[in-house]
């Protein structure tokens, strides 16, 4: 099997993502305006919200791949689900790290039970169980099908978790994503640019991870 970056398309995508990522970072640090009451803390949202977006996108792909695996019974959907789950969880961890960093100067505390942050934490913990379930082994065919079901029920539970946390403490409503939409164009466009860069980066990471899982499957077959 060819190395991933020996494929020209992948190499070009890597170069584009690298350039866009550096441009995005420079733009966030030097060119986005400061918000009066937030200063540097606000800039973390150009990373925090896109991370949350790709994290949830990852889990959405896990659910779709789960359905496809159950319908088509094709192993490639399980590879996609596993890759999306791992990358999604990486970005969810990033959300859980960057959230409190912003929250400390703005809310005066590192953690409040804000609905989106809480939903992220719950999904993150659930996916830790998902990975343990997969790694503890057993009949691989059965594990694949059961992991698909776990991925499906995790995502269909998201709206319920979100609503229940929102109803739980209705006073906690302030969320940067809502505030971001009300910002002036120079902030909004930078934010949308960052969102796009993270999405393209996610696609590249997903392709690469699926490639690695394929290699691992091949090596397991050859043993």
């Amino acid at each position: 099997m060819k190395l991933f970056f020996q494929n020209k398309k992948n190499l070009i995508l890597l170069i584009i993502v690298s350039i866009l990522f550096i441009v995005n970072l420079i733009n966030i640090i030097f060119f986005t305006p400061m918000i009066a009451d937030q200063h540097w803390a606000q800039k973390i949202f150009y990373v925090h919200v896109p991370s949350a977006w790709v994290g949830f996108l990852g889990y959405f792909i896990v659910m779709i791949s789960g359905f496809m695996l159950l319908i088509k019974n094709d192993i490639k959907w399980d590879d996609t689900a596993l890759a999306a789950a791992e990358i999604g969880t990486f970005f969810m961890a990033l959300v859980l790290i960057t959230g409190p960093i912003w929250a400390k100067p703005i809310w005066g505390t590192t953690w409040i039970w804000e609905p989106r942050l809480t939903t992220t934490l719950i999904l993150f913990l659930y996916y830790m169980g998902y990975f343990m379930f997969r790694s503890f082994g057993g009949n691989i065919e059965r594990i694949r099908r059961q992991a698909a079901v776990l991925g499906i029920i995790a995502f269909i539970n998201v709206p319920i978790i979100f609503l229940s946390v929102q109803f739980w403490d209705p006073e906690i409503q302030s969320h940067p994503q809502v505030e971001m939409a009300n910002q002036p164009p120079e902030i909004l466009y930078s934010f949308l640019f960052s969102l796009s860069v993270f999405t393209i980066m996610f696609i590249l990471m997903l392709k690469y991870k699926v490639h690695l899982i394929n290699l691992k499957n091949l090596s397991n077959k050859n043993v």
Partner: protein
Amino acid sequence: MLFSLIKKELMMEFRSKQIILSMLFFGLAIILIFALSSNVSRVILSNYAPGMFWLMNLFIIVLGVHRSFAYEKDFDAFSILISNPIDRGLIFVAKWVSGFLFISVTQFVIFVPFFKLLLLEFPENTLLFLSTTLFINIAIMAVANLISGIVLRSKFSEILLPLLLFPLLSPIAIAATKISKSVISLQPFAMWNEWFLIIASIIVIFGLAGYALFDYVVEE
């Protein structure tokens, strides 16, 4: 067929009494720990009582559901069960119904020592408290049986079950605590109807998901 499957579950429990008794005594042990570790005034404790009641229930449910599926591991009974020409979704429904009955019986027994040993007043509207508890049990057992069916044949299923179950049960835990608290403080239904709807939606979603997906979960 469904009734035969439910009857099988009930007969097994009737003969061994493993599930209900283990849940019951574990529940009492938890109450003991709660009582000894929360040396605070009755006013403070009564505020936490609904949360403690559901925390205890979640712990005993994990024990009961795990036991209910662990039965099937003995002599590979589960493989024999699924090799029969039956709708596998019905196995899920049978486990759901029987699990609901076991937890409800346990809760009805443990309800009195919970309030008595923690030196709390019984809810004024005890009937409503118990009926809402039954309703919440339906939702919990739908989720718990689906997850337990998934982890049944894994290594370390006893570790995986709470790891996967508790995050999924978090909306039910919030809703259950809010409903019980509202019922104890005699709030009208309009004040807690959204929680009721959340529980109802979980019953519908996980009931259907469990019935439809259980076939894939148990397939060899």
